[in-house]
């Protein structure tokens, strides 16, 4: 038995090292003047300093934050409203809403982006706007995750009962939904929005295909930068990865908290 766990530990260490080497190497690379020999030479943080004083990088960062927030807020509102209408008034339509929400799981970002682009580019009206196309595409890409998060939340609360109670107390159903139900499922919504942030933050294909390089997020910035200066790009890389890890850690933390909370209420 002892031998078995030792073997397991060796496998874990080997895979762990394999997975961490690229991260570690690039992080070290970003903190030195040059690395052309066996060891890196000249420790410095100047790549980071230049980045944070550079307007172009800061605007890429700003763009990224905006393009993460807007589609997620829109999608949450759309799904909340749709699920409210469907569960309260049209239960028969529910499975169609579900199908529409799950289709994006199976279509690739490349195909979604080119199909939206070829359909609306050059058309008249608001849909010709590249930003409108991009936000629309992101809404669709994150739809399955947001839907699943809200659906799971709604399954956990007794919605008809709560809404009836709210109505008896004189509130309308829609008011009751947003003031009673939504606060109850907010933790599920938070987790799925963070997953969505991770997806949009890591996206390159949709933004490149739809907006070209006219709207730069940090991924596009990294792509352009790595063609010219690999040391500066490695600092961008570190910032991107740190943000990604932060988002993942937050998701794990919230999920664990929720699981613990559920275990506790089950004990009672």
């Amino acid at each position, binding site marked *: 038995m002892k031998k078995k766990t030792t*073997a*397991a530990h060796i496998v*874990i260490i080997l895979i*762990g090292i*394999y*997975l*961490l080497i*690229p*991260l570690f*190497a*690039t992080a070290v*690379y970003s903190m030195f003047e040059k*690395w*052309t020999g*066996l060891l890196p030479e000249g420790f410095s943080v100047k790549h980071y300093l230049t980045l944070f004083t550079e307007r172009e990088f800061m605007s890429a960062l700003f763009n990224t934050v905006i393009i993460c927030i807007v589609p997620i807020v829109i999608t949450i509102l759309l*799904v909340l*409203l*749709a699920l409210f*209408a469907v569960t309260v*008034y*049209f239960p028969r339509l529910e499975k169609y*809403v579900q199908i*529409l929400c799950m289709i*994006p799981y*199976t*279509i*690739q*970002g*490349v*195909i979604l982006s*080119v*199909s*939206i*682009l*070829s*359909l609306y580019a050059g058309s008249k009206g608001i849909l010709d706007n590249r930003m409108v*196309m991009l936000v*629309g595409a992101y*809404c*669709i890409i994150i*739809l399955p995750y947001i839907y699943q998060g809200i659906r799971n939340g709604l399954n956990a609360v007794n919605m008809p009962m709560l809404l009836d109670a709210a109505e008896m107390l004189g509130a309308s159903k829609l008011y009751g939904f947003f003031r009673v139900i939504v606060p109850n499922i907010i933790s599920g919504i938070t987790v799925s929005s963070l997953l969505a942030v*991770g997806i949009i933050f*890591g*996206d*390159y*294909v949709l933004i*490149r*295909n739809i907006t*070209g390089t006219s709207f730069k997020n940090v*991924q596009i910035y*990294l792509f352009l930068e*790595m063609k010219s200066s690999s040391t500066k*790009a490695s600092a961008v*890389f570190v910032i*991107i*990865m740190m943000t*990604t890890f932060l*988002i*993942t850690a937050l998701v*794990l933390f919230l999920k664990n908290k929720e699981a613990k909370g559920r275990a506790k209420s089950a004990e009672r």
Partner: protein
Amino acid sequence: MKNKTKYLYLLVLLPFLTVVILFEVIPLIMIIINSFFPDKGGSVTLENYITVFSKPLYKKAILNSVYISCVSSGIGIIIAFFGAKAAHESSGKFHNAFMRVLNMVSNFAGVPLAFAYMIMLGNSGVLLQLGKEIGLDALANYKLYTTSGLTLIYVYFQIPLSTLLLIPAFEGIRKEWQESSLLLGASSTRFWTRIGLPVLMPSILGTISVLFANALAAYATAYALLMNNYALLPINVSGMFVGDVTIRRGLGGALSVCMMLLMVIMILITNRITKRFRKGGAKA
């Protein structure tokens, strides 16, 4: 009266339907329809599909995509099997640290991943320098900008995903089975080949189809590494619609449909095999 207000609530559903129809339903339907119309104008034809399957460039793109997806999924699932087995057998600090690493790097893909590999194994990469210093020619002359280099990077992002997907399946392997097979004289290898693997097979196949889809759709990694100089389905599909070239809706549509069909075929194959395994299990 009551009924009327009820249908008023269809309005609440309207924003959702508008966005989904505009950005999901119509674009997908249109790309399929477009694939049956020639780019020069004319009536319904299979011309685009004939081009896809006869022109060497597109054939190469399909073959490369299928090859890289299969190889990276194959290697990925083998490593994931041992990784998930180790995660299952370990506990405490080791287990938690491993889970944390897997979760963290599961989002490490696309442009950043390609960049990290270029830093390590690119033409003047850190590891290549190391190879030169210690006189390891295989490492010093490594070529990252090739099919095998691309596959190597794909394998990297397949590992955390597949391991995370397989770990829950190992919960289904009971300790009692292992103990009783040991008592009956079976070696550990024999236990895994005769009992463990068949039990896990549905999960393994499911994971493989996720990995295949994941590799097939990966665009950013390949594009960051090789730009447009490589025949690969997602790169060729994008190339038909984006950039200075004239947009080729028909041919691009046909390539997109081929890409979607590959996914469907993969899902059908794994479903079929899974069913066989489940049936076999029921008989026994």
